[in-house]
């Protein structure tokens, strides 16, 4: 069994108004040295297979076809073996 963690973020070229709003909140909190706040999504899942390669291939396909919209988002992921 493998466990994948997928991170989906807006591409750098896309304005992230939500990140901007949170950044203002961070500044109001007193952390004025913080910048470039971006909001993304985190998705985790278990994949029932014995091969790391398979788990990674599936995670990549799922991310490309469903979890991220590549017009506006990019993604990264990690896939680790979990003991059953």
């Amino acid at each position: 069994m493998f466990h994948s963690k997928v991170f989906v973020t807006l591409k750098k070229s896309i304005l992230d108004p939500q990140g901007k709003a949170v950044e203002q909140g961070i500044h109001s909190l007193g952390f004025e040295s913080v910048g470039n706040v971006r909001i993304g999504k985190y998705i985790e899942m278990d994949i029932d297979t014995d091969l790391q390669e398979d788990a990674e291939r599936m995670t990549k396909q799922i991310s490309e076809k469903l979890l991220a919209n590549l017009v506006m988002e990019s993604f990264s992921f990690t896939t680790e073996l979990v003991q059953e």
Partner: protein
Amino acid sequence: MEKVKIGVVVFPGSNCDHDAQYVAETIMGQDVRLIWHKEGSLGDVEVVILPGGFSYGDYLRCGAIARFSPVMKDVVRFANSGGLVIGICNGFQVLTEAGLLPGVLLRNKSLLFICKYLHLRVENANTKFTNTCTQGEVLEIPIAHGEGNYFTDPETLVRLEENRQIVFRYCDPTGQLTDEANPNGSINSIAGIINETGNVLGMMPHPERVSDPVLGHTDGRKIFDSIIKSFVLQQV
């Protein structure tokens, strides 16, 4: 003339499906059927409406999960064989997710859900969805969305402009394109686009909400009139 057969797809979370059905059936007098998203086939419909709403609760991204509904396979087949498809609001989002229209609809620049009447300029009156409008005509049609900020890469944008695929732009009451008249930050004030072959239209404003005279405005009816007129023209 025979009635046009119109199918309105119903996803879990669609909420403008019955409005679209009411307008097409009662106001326009056509033959309308609601199609549950689990149906594998559209049947013999000649026009497909993907209605507004919050399909699958807008989980993940607007329209992202709806595009995998069983019926969408047949919608893609229908669209690729030249069938008329109109996606309104959430329907537009589903069409972009399904790859039937380019680009994507981002969160509104203001982060607010905006529900109000506004003005649209008809940029291309030579489509099957706008043939009863005049070029440059200003329509008053409401929007109601939180994610309507149209975005696409610069190459696609050039192509959309060159092919006259931008059908509607947000404008002020006199037809001028201004930043104030653009409610959501859409690139080039885009409110609606059509595919290259001219049979798939996506628009964020809701024509079905302004088609019954009882509601005070009827500009939306022109979209439905145009669709029906395109069938009349076909028969001549």
